[in-house]
């Protein structure tokens, strides 16, 4: 078992961003991984405005990206300029100072894990067609799985064995156990597993086996 190294999420995010731009009638895209945790967020964007939209919401702590993450459902704003923004008033005002006419946010999910969000904007107003929405959801699924694989197996490359990682049941079972121990979110539980693996020069899988074998426990010490 080779020693795991921190994944290069940036390069992967760029590839994933491009897949949305190519397939959908949008002007720009921003993809941020692990949006639920400010400890570890990777952002990539096709242009400065896309990046700005995400950063604004991050700084303000409000906006459709947070709603998509918390509801685990897409947030579609086809007429972003003519609508009222009751749920994110400050972000709504900021939006009116940009060229953005439509904004579509899709959560990146695998199981109970929130992997991140992808934000698409357009400088022309209007809804995505049913077909475009299906394509966007499909691309979001693909991105979520690909990111998960990268997180678990950094050196994936073209190695077919690398694809094993997300399917390993023990990783997901261990995530559930850590979830029970820490009381956090599933994404945080997975990050804990991964962090522990890196810190000890072990694979996520080996670490998961320790958790399942009750040899490793993440229960916080009582104070």
């Amino acid at each position, binding site marked *: 078992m080779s020693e795991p190294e921190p994944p290069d999420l940036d390069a992967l995010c760029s590839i994933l961003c491009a897949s949305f731009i190519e397939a959908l009638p949008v002007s720009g895209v921003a993809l941020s991984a692990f949006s639920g945790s400010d400890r570890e967020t990777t952002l990539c964007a096709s242009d400065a405005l896309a990046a700005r939209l995400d950063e604004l919401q991050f700084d303000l702590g409000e906006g459709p990206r947070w709603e998509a993450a918390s509801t685990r459902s897409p947030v579609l704003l086809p007429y972003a300029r003519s609508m009222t923004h009751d749920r994110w008033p400050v972000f709504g005002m900021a939006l009116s100072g940009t060229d953005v006419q439509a904004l579509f946010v899709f959560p990146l999910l695998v199981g109970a894990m929130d992997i991140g969000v992808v934000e698409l904007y357009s400088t022309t107003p209007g809804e995505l067609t049913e077909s475009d929405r299906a394509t966007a959801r499909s691309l979001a699924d693909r991105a979520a799985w690909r990111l998960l694989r990268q997180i678990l197996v950094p050196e994936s490359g073209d190695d*077919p064995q690398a694809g094993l990682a997300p399917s390993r049941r023990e990783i*997901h079972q261990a995530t559930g156990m850590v979830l029970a121990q820490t009381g956090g979110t599933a994404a945080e539980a997975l990050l804990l597993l991964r962090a522990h693996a890196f810190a000890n020069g072990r694979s996520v899988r080996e670490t998961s086996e320790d958790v399942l074998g009750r040899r490793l426990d993440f229960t916080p010490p009582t104070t």
Partner: protein
Amino acid sequence: MESITRASRVSAAFVKIADTLVDEYDSLDLVQTLVEQSVELLDAAAAGLMIADPNGVLQVLASTSEEVRLVEVLQQETGIGPCIDCYSTGAPVTVRDIDGTRDRWPAFRDAAVAQGFRSVHAFPLRVRGRSIGAMNLFRVGTGELNAEDIAIGQALADVSTISILQERTIRESAVVNEQLQRALDSRILIEQAKGMLAYTADIDTAEAFQRLRAHARSHNATLRDTARAVLDRSLSL
């Protein structure tokens, strides 16, 4: 007499399956039932069903045993082996003597033989000319399946495909992808819930799965929703 008994068993199995194909059926529970039926009808030791994830990598969706060892054999396959051949060609694959495959799929051979499996038969899951996965039957004896067994195996695989995809008329590949994704996603939720239950109730993961399934069935809920409730901490079993 043998064949009459067989025919009635086969038809009973399909009636049982048809019974579950009502308005709101749980596709994961049904796929689980299908792999269990395939083992009984085709005299196999174990069976597993795998579908491709959004990146084309096969993932275990259901298996007759929750035991780690069977899953291990199937997971070996996600790299290289007869199941991936079946999936990538969309054609059935029969390996009549696993031990005799030499170095064709060494990791798969070792894992399978260690479990006492001597032959494997993989049936493709197909929709409109596209392959989405494979159902795999492992037997303790060597040899091929006869024509009747192959027909039954493929019929069970076809019903699995229908139940996973749910929609009867699928026009867009994006919709197929969505349904596949949902099935895989459900499987991950179930694994996470198993881990959570195993820890909180201090039981093993196989027992945790049994509790999940029993609760889902007795409350007319899906495995997915039941797992979700456990993970949300709104349900403790």
